């Protein structure tokens, strides 16, 4: 028997809407769950005082610093490299076997588990280059980890800039670099920022690669050659070693709020930039 289009239509709405609803409610559930347990602990004091007794008491200030510094360093290193690579691949080279191999390589790199990057960072930066467990080792490792994402999102964004813009720019006597700087990068900016934000998100939440390369020292770092502990690592250690469930949730809540606000600020900045341009 043939099912009427009217009914398949209704079924489709139910199925697609249901999937959306399920996804959203899971997301809300997780956030509410973490905040409900963590918010009672969370306070300015908690954020800005040093931990005591391995984190059983006191605040999480050093880990807050770690969670700001490491992703910043990672993004500062990975963005110019990634954007440069992506622009070179899309604007300066013709599509060929070589560019396809490079693209395949970056895709594979994006799929490698973070702990492998951690292991590499440990062997290369921490021991071979004798940087020790430090912010710089961790930042470099995270940079390598997020590089593929930044390259791919930038490539997509650059490719999406209309060909007409390039043609006009060249037809007015602009060089390739002038076209890249004045036309392509500004128009690809939203996509590039998305890639960078994905990178920030991944580095803030990363634990395995960070423990291997930045260590887990609870002291406030005084230079990039000091070890540090991020909030994510702090949460992991507090929960895993049963030190303090309460403070673990407090840290988790701080982490969730941090990620949300980073995204909100990026979104807001983006809108302002776009509004000014057009």
């Amino acid at each position: 028997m043939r099912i009427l289009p009217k009914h398949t239509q209704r079924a489709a709405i139910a199925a697609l809407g249901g999937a959306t609803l399920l996804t959203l409610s899971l997301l809300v559930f997780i956030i509410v769950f973490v905040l409900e347990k963590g918010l009672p602990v969370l306070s300015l004091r908690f954020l800005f005082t040093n931990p005591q007794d391995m984190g059983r008491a006191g605040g999480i200030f050093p880990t807050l610093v770690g969670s700001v510094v490491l992703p910043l360093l990672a993004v500062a290193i990975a963005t110019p490299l990634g954007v440069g690579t992506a622009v070179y691949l899309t604007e300066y080279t013709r599509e060929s076997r070589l560019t396809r191999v490079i693209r395949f390589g970056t895709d594979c790199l994006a799929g490698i588990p973070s702990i492998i990057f951690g292991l590499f960072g440990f062997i290369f930066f921490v021991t071979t280059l004798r940087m020790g467990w430090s912010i710089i080792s961790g930042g470099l490792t995270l940079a390598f980890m997020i590089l593929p994402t930044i390259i791919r999102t930038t490539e997509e964004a650059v490719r999406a800039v209309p060909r007409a813009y390039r043609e006009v720019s060249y037809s007015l006597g602009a060089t390739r670099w002038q076209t890249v700087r004045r036309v392509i990068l500004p128009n690809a900016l939203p996509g590039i920022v998305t890639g960078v934000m994905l990178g920030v998100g991944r580095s803030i939440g990363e634990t395995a690669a960070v423990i291997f390369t930045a260590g887990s020292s609870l002291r406030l770092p005084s230079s990039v050659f000091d070890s540090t502990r991020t909030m994510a690592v702090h949460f992991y250690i507090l929960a895993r070693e049963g030190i303090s469930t309460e403070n673990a949730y407090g840290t988790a809540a701080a982490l969730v709020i941090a990620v949300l606000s980073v995204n909100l600020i990026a979104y807001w900045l983006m809108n302002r930039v776009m509004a000014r341009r057009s």
Partner: protein
Amino acid sequence: MTNKIDIRDLDLFYGKFHALKDVSMAVRQNGITALIGPSGCGKSTLLRCLNRMNDLIPGCRVSGSVALDGRNIYAPDAEVASLRKRVGMVFQRPNPFPLSVRDNVVYGLKVAGSHDRRQLAETAERSLRGAWLWDQVKDKLDAPALGLPLDQQQRLCVARLLAVQPEVILMDEPCSALDPIATMKIEELMLELKRDYTIAIVTHNMQQAARVSDFSGYMLLGEMVEFGETNQVFTRPADKRTEDYITGRYG
């Protein structure tokens, strides 16, 4: 009148496809030269050879010569960026950058290294006046260019080109996205511009070619079938194929 551009024995290949076959023609100084022919005949390709826009297409090869004021623009020592400042282009669809009206007009100047605000402002005004757009946009120079009506956008593209003071203006079906009244305005503008510039235009619209051009070339399958004074091409075509096309029996 002298020849601004001389095209000799030009062949062009996209990969294995032979897109232009042994084309020779001239573009007269301070004249309007029209290229007509059915879709895919190579007229846009030929136009794009005149400022080497085809260089951007992978797998494109050119042989033969295109001389601008007697110097081959395909010579090994020819400089592409400076060529394109002398030979500018207006495209089929109005394509202002997503910037303000002002920033669009001065783009070419900034690229050429000019940053003096007063000079930029003067050139912007002169170019917008030259494109008959000044009165419409003088109060909204900082408004987004993409907010203008299509025909004003196209004239903005002309102004943007005039700002770099080209010698030759190439127009690739500049009116195909415009309505008849806007088309008429662009045509009037072309007649005005040819006093100071040399113009080559590709058009699908034979009436347009007949109305504005001094010389016409009819192309078919990559060949220049007939080239001559517009009047003669349209009233006494020497080639049977041209006659078929302009009388509407083909294409």
